């Protein structure tokens, strides 16, 4: 796994070594036994579902209808994946485009507004106004959004069923988490930085955009990766706020294909594999960031 995890792991490992160092030879055999056992268990619990989905996405319809794990008698990889991509007038292609666009747009807006807000909320910590705003942000972490009134508001300002509308809803709903991470990170930046910039004649805007924001890069990248996953995998918000087949996002498309392909498991599984690939890529490259974001969010939240 990644370096960040192995750092955590080394600490844990070192500690455990102290516990185990003089147990003798029998502990060696025990360790191997435990290792074999965990490998078998992890394979059964985690690998079999993955393998089942992937191998069945290669089969033809009749064979996938058997719902078993056997090796395909004939491979239909290209055919299945092409069928899924072209089904319903290339709906999945359009959905990928929509989802990517939604993810990029909402994360860009989220980063800018949350970084600015986190900066000022932290620097003004303790003030009456900022305490109240902090409370509102914390409430947003726990309280689920009110759905139909949100639709009503969107409709009122003409943004219901539009990309702009769903983007702003995603920003609003992910803002508390991002703001709290930013606030915690700004707290580690000494105020002397601000003061020296002010002495050099920078204003508040200049200070933030050319000095503070670049320093926030570690937490910015954590938020980008983590929230991209959340927005790309989001099903509920597009379901309510972005309906209509022209607006399909990947998760909605998968959900719709569930009824369209009730008898073609091979195509349904091909769809699942396709929409999981971006997550797999993120996992391989940014594992450390993802884990850091999830644990930081948990500790701060």
């Amino acid at each position, binding site marked *: 796994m990644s370096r960040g995890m192995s750092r955590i792991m080394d600490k844990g490992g070192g500690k455990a070594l102290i516990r185990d160092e003089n147990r003798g030879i029998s502990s060696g055999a025990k360790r191997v036994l435990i290792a074999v056992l965990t490998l078998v268990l992890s394979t059964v619990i985690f690998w079999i579902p993955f393998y089942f989905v992937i191998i069945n996405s290669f089969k033809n319809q009749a064979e996938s209808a058997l719902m078993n794990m056997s090796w395909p008698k004939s491979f239909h990889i290209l055919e299945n994946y092409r069928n899924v991509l072209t089904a319903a007038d290339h709906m999945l292609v359009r959905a990928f485009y929509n989802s990517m666009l939604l993810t990029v747009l909402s994360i860009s807006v989220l980063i800018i507004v949350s970084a600015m807000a986190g900066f000022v909320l932290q620097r003004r910590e303790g003030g009456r106004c900022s305490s109240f705003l902090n409370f509102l942000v914390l409430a947003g972490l726990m309280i689920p959004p009110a759905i139909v009134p949100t639709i009503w508001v*969107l409709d009122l300002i003409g943004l219901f069923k539009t990309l702009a509308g769903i983007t702003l809803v995603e920003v609003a709903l992910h803002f508390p988490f991002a703001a709290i991470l930013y606030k915690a990170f700004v707290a580690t930046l000494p105020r002397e930085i601000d003061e020296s910039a002010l002495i050099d004649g920078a204003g508040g805007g200049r200070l933030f955009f050319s000095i503070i924001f670049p320093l926030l890069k570690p937490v910015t990248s954590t938020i980008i990766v983590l929230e991209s996953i959340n927005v790309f995998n989001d*099903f509920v918000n597009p379901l309510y706020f972005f309906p209509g087949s022209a607006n399909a996002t990947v998760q909605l498309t998968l959900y719709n294909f569930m009824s369209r392909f009730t008898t073609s498991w091979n195509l349904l599984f091909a769809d*699942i594999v396709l929409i999981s690939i971006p997550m797999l890529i993120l996992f391989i490259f940014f594992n450390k960031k993802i884990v850091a974001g999830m644990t930081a969010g948990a500790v701060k939240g």
Partner: protein
Amino acid sequence: MTKLKIRTYSYIFLVPAFLIYFVFYLLPTVLSLFFSMTRWTLTHWNFIGFDNYVTFFSETALSIGFRNTLIYAAVTCGLKVILGLLLGAFLTSTVLFKNYLRSVIFFPTLLSTIAVGIAFSILMHPSQGLINTSLAALGINGPDWLGNTKIALLSVALVDVWKGIGVATVIYIAGISAIPGEYYEALKIDGGSSMNAFRYITVPLSRPAMNSVIILAFIGGLRSFDLIWAMTKGGPGFTTDLIASIIYKQYQAGFYGLATAGNVILFVGVSLLAFPLYRYLTKGEVYL
């Protein structure tokens, strides 16, 4: 300095974020209190007082959601707290293939809930599904995981745990790794076993991590919608309907006022359960 502070840390910085947050989250939340007391078609509303709430509590098809949501949240939260702790302790010890195991356990958290739901509803097919055919090979007669009204909710909860255990585990790993090694050393010098280490050092000192897991998993469970919708749609009958899925059903049927009442009940419920729970848990925390 105050004047400088006002100019430098200007509230203008807060405007874009809080404008979006207000219009698309806070305002609808406040409005929901009013709209939950109306018969509502999005363009017109009649004020009907608490009728929607009365309907919600008196109709079995709706009120079953409270029981189910509590069961679902309690089961998923309980399993994540216990299994996460065991996995966290296990994966910070000297076990082999640690990194590989962490990756495998963590990866499902990144998958789409809908995708996981679809895959497992096929694996849980009563006669042909892989789970029951494997059990049959061992001579066990597997149940109808999603069709049996007694266990359908628990089956979905198990899938939720499968998908979400990775987050709980990494939080525990972070917490357990922060415990100073000297404590374990001291225990060893005093002749304690590794079971003692787990019981008297790991468990009490990973309380902050445990509290995070409890809060996150419990709130997540109360708000849960995607997985139940992908796997059972609340069926068979209403036996696996959660508050969130009932809200969606009422919304689809055009009962916007009723759906909004459900929403208010959900967020009042979450606040009433989660805030005191948080207060209670953080009171007993041990600081390192």
